[in-house]
């Protein structure tokens, strides 16, 4: 019942809202894809991946270059997603044996390396001068609606994939790996294979989203599509909503973006600092995210945090 109303709101939105709101909602959908994708490797398997930006940027450039060679737009998006997936597969081989901080850093640096490669391969990517994409011959509102639905569709697909994984042996296996990887191996879970699949899943939809984003904005630069915030924000969103839950990433994405918009509109010079404050508060008072929220437990937590020195 709740699902039906939600679906109705999502579908009806672009027909009742102004263009700017549609744009905001489209971003919400895009970040939902990123957050849901991160959940596979970060929330379920417990590997703190910062590679989201790398996959996004890779997808954006793949899509843009494909479109530049007259590949039809939807095909370009699909190809970008596939490329990101394949890349993640290969990358996983190299990185997934690392744990904790090292995995985090390595995945972060991959994005940096790709960004620098994009910056220097001027022939292919336009280098520091960016890459143009063809404008669609559509009216402004029609385009806004089109991209909204594309991104919403992608979000729905990613959500569906999450739900599937959750019910499947893969989901169970990943959670086991997060609890104790060695023990999981001992009970017969092929940790390497499962982790790699999770990593690939965390890349495929993100790559497609990157390509769709490129088509949407018509001009991309390495610094924008490989921005480290594209890796950090989805993580904060998932933590906000509840890591490992299925709807948490979506809830987290919506709430975070709403907060960000609120803060940015009203506090011109200190919005970055306020965002930082929100993040710190999140870590302290909502360690398991919004969906695990129990108001009484929250009050208890707050009191405990302010008690003398004991880490909770």
């Amino acid at each position, binding site marked *: 019942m709740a699902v039906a109303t939600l679906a109705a709101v999502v579908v009806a939105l672009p027909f009742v809202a*102004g*263009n*700017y*709101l549609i*744009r*905001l909602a489209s*971003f919400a959908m895009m970040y939902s894809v990123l957050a849901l994708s991160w959940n596979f490797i970060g929330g379920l398997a417990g590997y703190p991946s910062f590679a989201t930006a790398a996959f996004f940027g890779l997808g954006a450039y793949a899509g843009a270059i494909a479109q530049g060679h007259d590949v039809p737009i939807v095909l370009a998006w699909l190809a970008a997603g596939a490329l990101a997936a394949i890349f993640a597969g290969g990358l996983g081989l190299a990185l997934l044996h690392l744990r904790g901080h090292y995995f985090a850093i390595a995945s972060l640096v991959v994005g940096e390396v790709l960004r*620098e490669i994009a*910056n*220097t391969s001027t022939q292919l990517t336009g*280098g*520091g*001068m*960016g890459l*143009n994409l063809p*404008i669609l011959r559509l009216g*402004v509102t029609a*385009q806004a609606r089109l991209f909204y639905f594309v991104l919403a569709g992608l979000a729905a697909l990613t959500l569906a994939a999450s739900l599937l994984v959750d019910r499947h042996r893969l989901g169970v296996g990943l959670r086991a790996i997060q609890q104790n990887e060695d023990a999981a191996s001992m009970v017969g879970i092929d940790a390497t294979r499962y982790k790699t699949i999770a990593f690939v899943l965390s890349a495929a939809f993100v790559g497609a989203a990157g390509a769709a984003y490129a088509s949407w*904005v*018509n*001009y991309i*630069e390495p*610094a*924008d599509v490989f*921005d480290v915030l594209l890796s950090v924000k989805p993580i904060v969103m998932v933590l906000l909503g509840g890591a490992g839950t299925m709807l948490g990433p979506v*809830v987290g994405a*919506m*709430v975070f973006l*709403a*907060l960000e*918009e*609120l803060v*940015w*509109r009203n506090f*011109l*010079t200190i*919005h*970055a600092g306020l965002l930082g404050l929100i993040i710190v508060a999140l870590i302290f008072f909502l360690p398991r995210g*919004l*969906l*695990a*929220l*129990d*108001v009484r437990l929250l009050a208890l937590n707050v009191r405990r945090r302010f008690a003398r020195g004991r880490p909770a």
Partner: protein
Amino acid sequence: MATVLVWALALAVVLSGVAPTLPGPAAAADKALRVGAPLPLTGPLSPEGLKQKRGYDLWVAEVNKAGGIKVGGDRYKVEMVYNDYQSNTPRAVQLAEKLISDDKVNFLFSPFGSGATKAASGVSEKYGIPTIAATASSEEVYNQGYKYLFGTFTPNATLTEPLADIVKGKVGDVKKVAILARNDLFPLAIGQEMEKSAKKRGLEVVFFEKYAIGTLDHASAITQIRAARPQWIFATGYINDLILIRKQMADLGVSAAVVTMIAGPAYKEFAEATGPRAENVTSAAWWHPAVRYKGPDVFGTTENYNKLYQAVYGAVPDYVEASASACGVILQLAIEKAGTMDPRKVRDALASLDATTFFGPVRFGPTGQIVSLEPPVFQIQGGKPVVIYPVAVKQSDLRIGVK
């Protein structure tokens, strides 16, 4: 139960964040013309964003003091609508859309720099809103065939060509040029133009390398330049890069007959941060307070502009501030010429504009980029930028030798 609470919370947050976008009560009776300007008021580009804002504000103050812009038989006061895109290009694009579709601005002034201008121009093109760019010079910005984008900076070659002429003419034994460019739209583009200008005059480009954004150390590049022994060194980047490069050149004992840097020496911050080593560094820009133009715009003459700027801000204006004011002046002239605020007609008026302003003569080419300026070349002498070209406004001659 908790989930319901959460959804309610989320919904409430979203709605409260969105509420400001709902249309408020109708504005006051005074007729107003709204111009949107997304600017980097925070983040790495904030110094430049604030310069642009100062330029716009000065124009608005003057034009409103004179009663507003004449549109047909009416007078409209100008209202600027500013938004901060935090030096983040995708946000600039987002804001351009917000300003047009939500805040319903009549016209748009571009964000700072070639990259963001290019990115945001797609939006104004889609909506058909005339947009004037105060700080975009690279031809790549204007190469998408857009009709609604106009820019107040001439193409990069108009800076490098006169520079090359002067150096070739005054420095007899110049044969070799070294170019070090930041790997970013504008700095790289102008580096490439320099290469062309140099080669055209038979100079040998013995070194042309790019450095990544965020490079902390240029020693290797500068060491290689030293080994090549050029007579002319050309470095591009933003002010922090150039401050560092100049210092490291001194650290490594590199000297040359001519050292040109774009774009930093125009700002007083460059001379302040570089100290005595700034002496004799040359540069070029699209405007300099020493030029002298007279026109029908609200400032009248360059001297008057400088005087007004000095009175309000207590400092001499540089080319970014002047260019921003120029955007306002140009928009005003076009609207007055068209006699209406209709975007299509104003766009056509802009495209066919031919006027002189305090900023210089204004005529746009087919891509929307201005083609009529004669950018001054200047050199830091006695700690201040001094014009050495064009001859009409020259204050001094080129001094050779940078240690």
